[in-house]
């Protein structure tokens, strides 16, 4: 077993290459001038610049939070480029054929063939490198259904009223330290709007890639589903191997109006750092959705990357009978640290939420589940069920659970279950006696442990997620 753990800790990150794309950078540092520079680059309207500057002013009054169960040296916010973009080699591409071949090659290498995506898979993709969106596929087809799917920058230009109405409506700039930072300097991201009663005809997906050095990535995603609309969305993320830590502070806002449904899936595989804990992405993300009456918001995440993860996808269950779900698999190996979980805020009557969190730790990794379930006075008949299971591989890792439960209504019901287990020697021996190698056996046991969450992923990504798990636990998992 210990040999397997050693190999596990030494696993290689498969997406660690750097693409030689000419990049335009903002000067390092966090200043009003940098915020104005970003806003001007994107040709933003005055209200948005003012919004950013307000966020920056607020950020200046805050200090970095320290409550998360993670440990890292202080971040120098003035030693980061807040804008990095592949230098355009001409006018903006109108179609895939016009996209810089080097950028296309980058995505091909990541297994995201943009051209193939467009032709075959029926999944619309928004591809983002560093601070900008390079291409969005399937736009016309989506437009026929009335669905808007584009980069955030484009949305600001083309659909300013929609953006203005919803931006910051779920995660206001003053929400927290990293949300304030993001609001000041966010660069690009995806925007999606599904009109009333429309079921989005295909899966939507955004692929984030950090490429440039010493830059932060601050994307902003906004998804609006009008009354009775339905959409399923997936994001994926990777970054090159570098021995510096890079900051990723994103904000995702979901607005599900009455009877709408949003399913948001994440496969996060940012560079986790090397076997000595050097380098890797700091992934400090705020994700939240607001659900109207009978609306449903479901977060599913498979988190295998990042040196440090700090993220709590949440649902505000505002409307009566609204539903919130959180299904999570988080894998930490080597020196990775994760403090992740969810918040379910029950406001409406008969609202229900489900939390299923599966944490897997190996090597020297430390992982914490932090979840909050809040039943407000108005939440008559609300129900929550939480289940948090941790699986430890090897003797040096740790798992921690911090559930916070606050109930102000007597009729509300909250159930919380937690377990911690190890891959038992007798499970491994049983599998090996039947002919499976130790790696196959570990893979099978881990995948079985995560089954409830993988079942929630869209079909095509469930396979991808399992493959990613194998890769992440390379050595222990064939």
């Amino acid at each position: 077993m210990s040999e397997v753990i050693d190999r596990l800790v030494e696993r290689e990150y498969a997406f660690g290459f750097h693409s030689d794309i000419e990049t335009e950078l903002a000067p390092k540092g966090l200043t009003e001038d940098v915020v104005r520079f970003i806003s001007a680059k994107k040709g933003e309207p005055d209200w948005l610049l003012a919004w950013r500057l307000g966020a920056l002013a607020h950020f200046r009054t805050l200090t970095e939070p320290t409550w998360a169960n993670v440990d890292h040296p202080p971040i120098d916010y003035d030693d980061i480029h807040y804008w990095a973009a592949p230098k355009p080699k001409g006018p903006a591409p109108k179609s895939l054929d016009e996209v810089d071949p080097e950028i296309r090659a980058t995505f091909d290498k990541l297994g995201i063939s943009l051209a193939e995506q467009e032709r075959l898979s029926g999944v619309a993709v928004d591809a983002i490198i560093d601070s900008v969106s390079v291409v969005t596929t399937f736009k016309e087809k989506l437009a026929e259904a009335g669905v808007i799917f584009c980069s955030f920058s484009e949305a600001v230009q083309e659909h300013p009223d929609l953006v203005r109405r919803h931006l910051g409506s779920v995660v206001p700039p003053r929400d927290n330290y990293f949300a304030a930072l993001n609001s000041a300097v966010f660069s690009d991201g995806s925007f999606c709007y599904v009109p009333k009663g429309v079921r989005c005809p295909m899966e939507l997906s955004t692929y984030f890639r950090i490429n440039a050095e010493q830059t932060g990535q601050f994307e902003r995603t906004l998804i609006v589903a009008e009354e009775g609309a339905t959409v399923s969305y997936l994001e994926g993320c990777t970054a090159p191997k570098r021995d510096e830590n890079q900051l990723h502070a994103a904000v995702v806002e979901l607005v599900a109006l009455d009877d709408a449904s949003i399913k948001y899936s994440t496969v996060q595989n940012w560079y986790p750092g090397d076997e000595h804990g050097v380098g890797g992405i700091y992934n400090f993300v705020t994700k939240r959705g607001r659900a109207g009456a009978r609306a449903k918001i479901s977060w599913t995440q498979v988190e295998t990357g990042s040196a440090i993860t700090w993220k709590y996808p949440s649902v505000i269950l505002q409307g009566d009978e609204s539903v919130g779900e959180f299904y999570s698999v988080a894998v930490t190996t080597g020196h990775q640290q994760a403090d992740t979980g969810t918040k379910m805020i029950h406001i409406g009557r008969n609202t229900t939420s489900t939390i299923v969190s599966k944490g897997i730790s190996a090597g020297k990794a430390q992982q914490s589940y932090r979840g909050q379930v809040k039943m407000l006075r108005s939440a008559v008949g609300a129900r929550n069920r939480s289940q948090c299971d941790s699986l430890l591989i090897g003797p040096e890792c740790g798992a921690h659970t911090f559930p916070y439960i606050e109930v102000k209504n007597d009729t509300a019901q909250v159930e919380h279950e937690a377990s911690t287990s190890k891959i038992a020697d007798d499970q491994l021996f049983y599998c090996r006696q039947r002919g499976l190698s130790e790696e196959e056996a570990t893979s099978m046991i881990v995948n079985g442990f995560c089954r409830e969450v993988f079942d929630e992923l869209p079909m095509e990504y469930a396979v991808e997620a399992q493959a990613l798990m194998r890769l992440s636990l390379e050595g222990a998992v064939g």
Partner: protein
Amino acid sequence: MLHIHDLHAKVPDGKTILSGLSLDIGAGEVHAIMGPNGAGKSTLSNVLAGRDGYEVTGTVTLDGVDLLDLDPETRAARGLFLAFQYPVEIPGVGNSYFLRTALNAQRETRGEEPVSAGEFITLLREHLAALDMDPSFLGRAVNEGFSGGEKKRNEILQMSVLRPRLAVLDETDSGLDIDALRIVASGIERLRGPDRSMLVITHYPRLLELVRPDRVHVLAGGRIVASGDHTLAHELEADGYAGLTADLAPAGASTGTA
């Protein structure tokens, strides 16, 4: 087929559990091993299957190949199957998926083509019927929430599908009521054949009435102290092990937990 010579096994704290065990099982033969608690019966099955945690010396060959140098999965692919006394639960992993993956892993090691999902299901259904198992069983997670009897039948199902050269059944009859015992016994009988040998480890003669062994051995103090035909089992039932074990040096040899 199976040749065991002068097998010794110690656990890390130094306690000797097997001390000079020798045994030969020919092709197509069924041998039973009986013995008192702590005689080393489960240790023998673990050592044959390659479980970690024992210091082992001696010789064990299957079809002329030395097993002791091989890891458990290679022994399995060579045709060794152990029906566990306490089958292990693997939450979230479907029975049918588990078994097909195991079968194909063994086939790959042997250089054989994998069995397709379709062929596999056909194969499984036959065996399920024979073991009086409900097909819904296949979608359930491996042994999770199974009753004692279901777990034991599942072991026999796996054995039926994997078709081993040598099956070691470790107290497969323990904890079974008489109906379950009959089903398990008929499952074992169905697999009896000229190419397959079996080593049936049991406390009780009742299984041996349903699966009549060619030879019965008594394991005590870490080695075989008596051998005979199936009538030996009945003698043991009448007289107990006392007469056979009285002359053994007790020096820690019969106090193992195995």
